[in-house]
């Protein structure tokens, strides 16, 4: 059975209130068609786990603009005044996580680890209320694994089985999020026949990808 789906059909699978991981860094590597379709279908009450909320009108910023997001777990929202405004008005819950910690928490969630021990954030507000572990005289925060219902990722190429490779700084959180969600929907720039991405160039193995969206797909 083909994994290829239209953008509309893929987004129809996303329930209201879903916990989404969305790849990208300031919009680069955020799947553009999936974002636009989320807005078109008006999927509400979303929890979004992502590095940032980009800018108004850009990438995840479009979801913020449309008022679809209930909660954001991110490392940075400083470039999006709308996110900050909604947060201050208590219309949007924001959980700020150090960027490297966010990457590890997503990776841990996808790797069957309970979490990681990191020195980042010890003694700061980022460490408040968290367990700590002492090892060889150093204190580490216990940073728990995080998972999502659905991951929306972008890629440079997919083959029809779902093997993915990425492009430059658009890679960022995408391969980590592909590990950490129940349903993984990938939006590649191109789809190539199986066997046309050499094994060493594949970054995300096909077994992690459930749906590949393509602009002209029938379904």
């Amino acid at each position, binding site marked *: 059975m083909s994994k290829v789906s239209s953008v509309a059909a893929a987004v129809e699978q996303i329930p209201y209130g879903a916990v989404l991981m969305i790849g990208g860094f300031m919009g680069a590597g955020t799947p553009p068609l999936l974002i636009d379709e989320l807005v078109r279908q008006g999927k509400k009450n979303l929890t979004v786990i992502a590095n940032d909320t980009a800018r108004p009108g850009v990438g995840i910023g479009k979801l913020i603009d449309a008022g679809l997001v209930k909660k954001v777990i991110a490392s940075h929202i400083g470039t999006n005044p709308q996110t900050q405004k909604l947060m201050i008005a208590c219309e949007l819950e924001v959980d700020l996580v150090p960027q490297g910690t966010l990457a590890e928490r997503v990776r841990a969630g996808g790797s069957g680890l309970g979490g990681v021990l990191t020195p980042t954030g010890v003694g700061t507000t980022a460490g408040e209320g968290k367990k700590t572990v002492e090892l060889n005289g150093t204190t580490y925060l216990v940073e728990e694994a995080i998972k999502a219902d659905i991951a929306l990722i972008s890629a440079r190429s997919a083959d029809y089985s779902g093997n993915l490779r990425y492009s430059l*700084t658009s890679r960022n959180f995408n391969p980590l999020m592909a590990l950490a969600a129940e349903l993984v929907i990938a939006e590649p720039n191109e789809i190539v026949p199986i066997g046309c991405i050499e094994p060493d160039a594949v970054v995300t193995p096909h077994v992690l990808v459930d749906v590949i969206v393509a602009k002209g797909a029938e379904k």
Partner: protein
Amino acid sequence: MNEKEIIARRVALELKRGDLVNLGIGLPTMVANYLPSDAGISFQSENGIIGMSALPDPGLAGADLTDAGGSPIGALPGACAFDSALSFALIRGGHLDVTVLGGLQVDEEGQLANWMVPGKMVPGMGGAMDLVSGAKRVIVAMTHTAKGAPKIIKKCTLPLTSVRRVDLVVTEMAVIQPTEEGLVLLETAPGVTVDQVIAASEAKLLIPKVPGVMGIAA
């Protein structure tokens, strides 16, 4: 030469051949402008590349190659791209030689606050907490005061970025080295007196017999 340029030119002198360096958004990014192209320094952008360069021409931008602020950049021969986990493995794992960041406050213990002003500005820490915890050297590049108020103070009142002591603070007035004993005034900028630096700082400064004059990269 404006304040920012003085700071950036002085920070440039701290970078050595072979260093892997991360420059924060804003003022720190300017540091790259004052290094010769053959300086042998590699720049990392935390969104996943080593070997970034300025865009040679606005017409040569690609949507998939951006800096941590989302602006298009170029890549040098030998550049390499990676995901966010490896990017921060490099930062946290002690592979990053120098990070240059902006600052809101630095205190007598050498601790830095640079990521939020409660109730006013909550941009998030982005990569700053990892950078300050993990880099081999942390250089704070900031103006000495903000609207006349000292930023080099006795004890940070804003939320800390890390409990780690930063290694150097470079302002348009002075170069200050946080140590176990306190903040040592290493250099004053050309035309700035020791007394002027003391007056513009709330923190106690340790004054060597002869503070140097601040060098500035060509």
